[in-house]
C-alpha cells in the first residue's frame, strides 16, 4: 500500500500535475473573465479544439512555435468576438449561442484539418516545445525536476495567468468587467459602454481558452487528433463554479484537479488490470460533478450572469 502514498513524493508526479494543469488553468481563467463580465461562454470546448488545431497547423505548415501560440490566440479572439456579437450586442440566448459556437469551432477545425491533410490515418507530428532548465533552480533536488524543467509554454501560461490576475484586480478595466457582471446599469451610469466591456472580456477570455487548447498540441503532445479536448472545456466550467468565480481559487482548483488526475494515472499503473481503465477515465468527470455539489451551498453567481444588457431598459 505504501507505494500509493509514495507517488506524491516523486518529482514526476508534480511535474505531471503542472503539465495537466496548464491547459485547464488557461481555460478556467478564460471562462472566469467571460462570466465575471456576465457572459456564460459554452463555446469553450470548441474554442479549445480549434485553438489546438490552428496552433498545431501553423507550426506544421512551417511557422515557429511562438507564431503557433499567436495564431491560436487570434482564432480564439475571433470566436470570442462572434460569441460577443450574439450574446452581448444582440442579446441572444447565451446557452444556445455557446453550444452553437462549440459546434461551429470544432467542426470548422476538423473540416480545415481534413482539407489540408486529407488522407492522414496516423496524425503527423511536429517538434513541440522542449523542456528548458531554469539556471540554478533546475538543479535543486526534487524541486528542480518538479517545477523548473518545464517547456517555455508552461512558463508563458503562468505569465498569462499573472497578467489576468493583474487585469482583474488592479486595473480600471478589471473593475469595469466585474461591474458589468454585477450591476451593468451602474456601469452605464458612469458613462462606460457595457457592451464594449463585456466584448473585451469575452474576446480576451476566449483567446486564453484557445491558447489552453494549443498547449495540448504544442507542448503536452505533438499531434492534433479529433476529440483531443475530451471534455476539458466542460471541466473548466465546473471549476469556475467550484471556484466561486474567483481567479485565484480557480487556479488552486485547477491545480488540485490536475494533481488528482496525475495521481490516478500513476495509481492505475500500480493497480494494474484490477480495475478497468474506463473507471479511471471517468474520475475527472465525476469529480467535477462532486466539486459542483460541494460548491453549490456557497455559490454566489455574478448577479448579471445570463442577463443580456439592453440600453435604456431597466431591470
Amino acid at each position, binding site marked *: 500500500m505504501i507505494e500509493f502514498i509514495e507517488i506524491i513524493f516523486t518529482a514526476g508526479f508534480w511535474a505531471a500535475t503542472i503539465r495537466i494543469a496548464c491547459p485547464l488553468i488557461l481555460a478556467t481563467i478564460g471562462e472566469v473573465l467571460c462570466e465575471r463580465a456576465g457572459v456564460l461562454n459554452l463555446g469553450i470546448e470548441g474554442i479549445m479544439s480549434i485553438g489546438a488545431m490552428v496552433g498545431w497547423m501553423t507550426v506544421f505548415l512551417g511557422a515557429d512555435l511562438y507564431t503557433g501560440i499567436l495564431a491560436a490566440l487570434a482564432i480564439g479572439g475571433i470566436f470570442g468576438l462572434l460569441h460577443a456579437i*450574439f450574446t452581448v450586442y444582440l442579446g441572444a440566448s447565451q446557452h444556445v449561442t455557446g453550444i*452553437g459556437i462549440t*459546434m461551429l469551432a470544432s*467542426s470548422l477545425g*476538423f473540416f480545415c484539418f*481534413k482539407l489540408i491533410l486529407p488522407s492522414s490515418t496516423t496524425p503527423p507530428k511536429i517538434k513541440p516545445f522542449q523542456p528548458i532548465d531554469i539556471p540554478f533552480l533546475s538543479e535543486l533536488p526534487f524541486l528542480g525536476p518538479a517545477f523548473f524543467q518545464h517547456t517555455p509554454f508552461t512558463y508563458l501560461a503562468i505569465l498569462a495567468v499573472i497578467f489576468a490576475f493583474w487585469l482583474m484586480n488592479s486595473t480600471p478595466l478589471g473593475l469595469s468587467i466585474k461591474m458589468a457582471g454585477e450591476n451593468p446599469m451602474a456601469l452605464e451610469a458612469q458613462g462606460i459602454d457595457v457592451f464594449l466591456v463585456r466584448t473585451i472580456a469575452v474576446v480576451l477570455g476566449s483567446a486564453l481558452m484557445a491558447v489552453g487548447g494549443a498547449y495540448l498540441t504544442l507542448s503536452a503532445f505533438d499531434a492534433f487528433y479529433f476529440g483531443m479536448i475530451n471534455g476539458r472545456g466542460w471541466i473548466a*466550467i*465546473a471549476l469556475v463554479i467550484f471556484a466561486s468565480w474567483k481567479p485565484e481559487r480557480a487556479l488552486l482548483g485547477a491545480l488540485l484537479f490536475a494533481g488528482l488526475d496525475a495521481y490516478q494515472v500513476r495509481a492505475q499503473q500500480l493497480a494494474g488490470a484490477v480495475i478497468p481503465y474506463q473507471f479511471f477515465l471517468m474520475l475527472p*468527470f465525476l469529480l467535477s460533478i462532486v466539486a459542483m455539489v460541494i460548491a453549490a451551498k456557497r455559490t454566489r453567481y455574478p448577479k448579471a450572469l445570463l442577463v443580456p444588457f439592453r440600453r435604456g431598459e431597466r431591470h
Partner: protein
Amino acid sequence: MIKFRLEERAKSPYWLIILSPFIAILVAIILAGFLIVLAGANPFQSYNQLVIGAFGSKNSVAETLARATPIILTGLAASIAFRAKFWNIGAEGQLYFGALATTLFGTGLVVLPSILMIPFLFIMGALAGGLLLLPLVLLKLYYKVDEVVTTLLLNFVVVLLVSYLLEGPWKDPMSLGWPQGKSVIGEGVLPQILSKTRLHLGFIISIFFAFSVWFILSKTVIGYRIKSVGLNAAAASHAGVPIFKTVLIVALLSGGMAGMAGVTETAGLKGYLTLDLSPGFGYAGIAVAMLANLNPIGVIFSGVFLASIYVGADAMSRAMNVPTYLADVIVALTVLCILLSLVFVHYKILFFGAKKND
C-alpha cells in the same frame, strides 16, 4: 461608432415567424458554400450531389428517414427541456443509457411476443434515459447545481461505461474481437417498413411521439405549466404552478425521449449496441429543436432536414472530395443563423448616430 438599440416588437409579423427558419437555413448553406469553394469544388454541383445523396433514390430517402429517427427523438428531448429553460445537454448520454437498457432487456433476459416486446423495450429505454437525468435534476432542485455542466459531464461518463461494458462483461463472444453487444432477439427487433431498405418502425414511432409531445405541450395543464416555468419561473410560482413537480416532469419526459432514441438505434438500425452507435445525435437534437422553434411537429421536419444534410454530405464527400465535416459545419451555422433570425423576429433594430465623447 454606430450605436443601435433593440426595440421589442409588440407583435412579430406572422410571415417573419414562418419564414425565419428558411432564411436561416439559406444563409447557413450560402456560408458553407464558401467552404466548398475553399475545398476546390463547385458549390452548386456539390449541393446537387448532396440533394441526390439524400433524396435521389428510394434507398437514399429511406436512409435519410432512418437517420432522422433518433434525431427527431433527441430533438423532442431538447424541445421539452428548453421550453422550461431546463438546459438538458445530456441527450447523448441518455441515448446511450437507453441503448444499454435495450441490450440488458432485449438480448434474452425477457422474451415476449413482438407486439409486447417492442413497447416493453421502449418503456425500458425511456425509463433508463429519465433515470440518468433524475439525480441531476434533483441536484438542481435541491442544491441549485447547474444542469448544463452536469448533463454535459455525464455524457462522457456514460460513453466510458458503455466502452467498459462492451469490452468486458457485455461483449458479444461471437463478434470476432469487435467491441459490440449481443444481438437483440428477433421479437424485439423493429421491423422494416420499406422492403430492402434500412428504414424501420422506429421512424413511425418517433413521429407518433412528436404528436404526443405536441399534445402534452399545447393541450394539457402540464404543458401549460412547462411553458409558464420557462417564461418566468418566479411568476409561475406565484401563480401556483408547482415548480418542483413541473421541472421533474420536464426532466423525465426529456430524458425519456432521448433514451428512446437509443432504443431505435439498438433495436432498429443496428440490432446490437456499439460504441459508435451515436455520432452526436444528442447534440444534433439541440440544433433540430432550435430550428423548429421548439415546436414538436416542427421537429419532424427539421429532423428530416438535418438527417438529409448528414446522409447527403457522405455522398457529396465521395463525389466532390469535400470533407464530410461540412455537414457538421452546416448544422452549426444553422444553429447560429436561427438565433440571429430569432433576434430579428422579436426585436426591431434602431440605429442612431454617434454621440460625442464616445
